[in-house]
């Protein structure tokens, strides 16, 4: 338990402040918030809707600006959260309702049935080997396959398997394969209820649906993929075991075009804001293309290169001068396939020469912007918070409460209040934790 002064103890006693916190969302921001609260001796319920914590970062191959591999730096964080005695992980769970006020919220959570008992499953994978059903793996953006009983990725935390009942044919082979008798096909959703003093919203983001730009060809033209698919494609644990190939014919692309600002800074698509990460992940992906195949051509089509974070500009410079990534200033207008050569052709105006050009590539990677998750409005509504016109949670004040929502005791971090890169999300996670623990300790000006 945290060390506390006498006056605090009294304050706590009179106000009946709960010593627990709730964090909604188990991505990199939510995990950081949970750790920083739990490390002060408080208890944290970490609610995550997917079967594993780790969020979007777990899907990434490398990260900018250090080219660290994402799994390598994230995995210790995953186990730190999972093993922390102060953190109660509630994965595959949804927030049902919130009532009460700062210091004493009543929270109801539905823990969906995963049909595998968490306390018994050792994550050995014998069940999955036996399962005859194969469906596209969401974690690989449908590029790879998983079984009906599955973990999304090797470092899945908890390592408990989950049965996707929509695909399950109830053949019970998994039940027979499981030595530990962890499978329970009769399992039902569980409803949990508990009190918390403070809540942190860390629900992350979703990718802009790039098919909305019809002329860029995504979904219509083979080998036009989006950046998250590219991440899985170059990842050793991904569907091609890390081989950067064209999915249409298995060939190694000799020339890749990266199209920036798709679903960002575009008023006509209701995404007027900058997504903050695309320039840098675009550059990183281009560098990775060079790393996979040094002779390949990697060209980035951009409007402005926004390398604003610590070490970002230096990374941009390195991509240009040392890796030989080409930068082409101009927004791509159209991607088509030349039926004669089979090449993908980007139509783009070179704004530096004021000339429209056609450039040929073997693969096009569209770099989508970030949007709030579809269910964000629904989730925060349960807490009495509304989203603003851009769909994100609004903060109380940029200077006095940059992680406070307009409801006391409820805080926000990561991409829930706007697009953010990993370091900024982590920093906000810590900041939100600080504010939450001020409430839990009965302190603060209130």
């Amino acid at each position: 338990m945290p060390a506390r002064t006498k006056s605090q103890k009294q304050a706590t006693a009179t106000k009946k402040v709960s010593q627990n916190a709730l964090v909604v969302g188990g991505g990199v921001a939510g995990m950081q918030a949970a750790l920083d609260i739990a490390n002060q001796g408080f208890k944290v319920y970490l609610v995550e809707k997917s079967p594993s914590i780790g969020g979007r970062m777990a899907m990434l191959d490398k990260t900018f600006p250090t080219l660290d591999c994402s799994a390598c730096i994230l995995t210790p964080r995953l186990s730190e959260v999972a093993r922390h005695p102060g953190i109660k992980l509630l994965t595959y769970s949804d927030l049902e309702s919130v009532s009460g006020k700062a210091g004493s919220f009543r929270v109801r959570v539905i823990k969906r049935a995963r049909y595998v008992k968490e306390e018994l499953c050792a994550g050995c994978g014998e069940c999955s080997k036996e399962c005859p059903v194969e469906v596209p793996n969401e974690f690989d953006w449908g590029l790879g396959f998983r079984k009906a009983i599955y973990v999304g990725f090797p470092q899945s935390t908890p390592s408990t398997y989950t049965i996707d009942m929509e695909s399950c044919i109830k053949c019970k082979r998994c039940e027979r394969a499981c030595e530990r008798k962890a499978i329970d096909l009769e399992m039902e959703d569980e409803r949990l209820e508990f009190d918390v003093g403070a809540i942190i919203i860390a629900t992350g983001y979703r990718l802009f649906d790039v098919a909305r730009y019809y002329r860029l060809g995504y979904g219509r033209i083979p080998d036009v993929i989006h950046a998250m698919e590219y991440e899985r494609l170059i990842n050793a644990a991904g569907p091609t075991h890390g081989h950067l190939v064209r999915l249409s014919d298995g060939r190694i692309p000799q020339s890749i075009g990266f199209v920036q600002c798709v679903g960002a800074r575009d008023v006509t698509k209701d995404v007027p804001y900058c997504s903050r990460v695309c320039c840098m992940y675009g550059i990183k992906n281009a560098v990775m293309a060079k790393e996979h195949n040094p002779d390949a051509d990697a060209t980035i089509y951009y409007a402005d290169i926004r390398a604003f974070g610590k070490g970002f500009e230096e990374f941009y410079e390195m991509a240009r001068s040392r890796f030989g990534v080409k930068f082409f200033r101009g927004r791509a207008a159209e991607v088509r396939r030349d039926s004669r050569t089979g090449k993908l052709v980007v139509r783009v105006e070179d704004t530096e020469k004021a000339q429209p050009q056609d450039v040929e590539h073997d693969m096009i990677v569209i770099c989508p912007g970030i949007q709030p998750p579809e269910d964000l409005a629904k989730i925060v509504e349960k807490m009495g918070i509304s989203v603003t016109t851009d769909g994100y949670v609004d903060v109380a004040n940029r200077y006095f409460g940059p992680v406070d929502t307009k409801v006391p005791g409820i805080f926000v971090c990561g991409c829930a209040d706007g697009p953010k890169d990993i370091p900024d999300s982590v920093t906000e996670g810590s900041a939100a934790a600080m504010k939450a623990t001020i409430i839990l300790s009965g302190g603060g000006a209130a």
Partner: protein
Amino acid sequence: MSQSQNETVVPEHWEPRILAYCCNWCSYAGADLAGTSRIQYPPNARILRVNCTGRIDPEFILAALEMGADGVLVSGCHPGDCHYTSGNLKLRARWALLEKVIEQSGVDPRRVRLQWASASEAQIFADGVKELTEQVRKIGPIRSEWK
């Protein structure tokens, strides 16, 4: 200098073997950064991590040369930037003496190199390995020098 470079017979396929003592805080981190930045440099050096270059007893370097290291690199924080305030200065003080001893024993002093590379100076670290490797390659294997 007392080495007898002209008599050296360089065996075929010979590759210089280099031992690199790096301090944990600056140069080892700089070497890590060289990796994450994918800076490519000769694979001849084997890094041995010490907390501080101040930990390096001249004996460690002499022994390495005696055991057959063709070159020894010592890489630490810049003077004034030592994580332990002044350990690197202590090493620098020992270095002059060390070079003398090496020379007197008939070993080409160009086989040892002292450099400063901070945690952000990945390129300087990599260049240091490269330069020493190339230098030692020119001098030839150490076996020919010990009397």
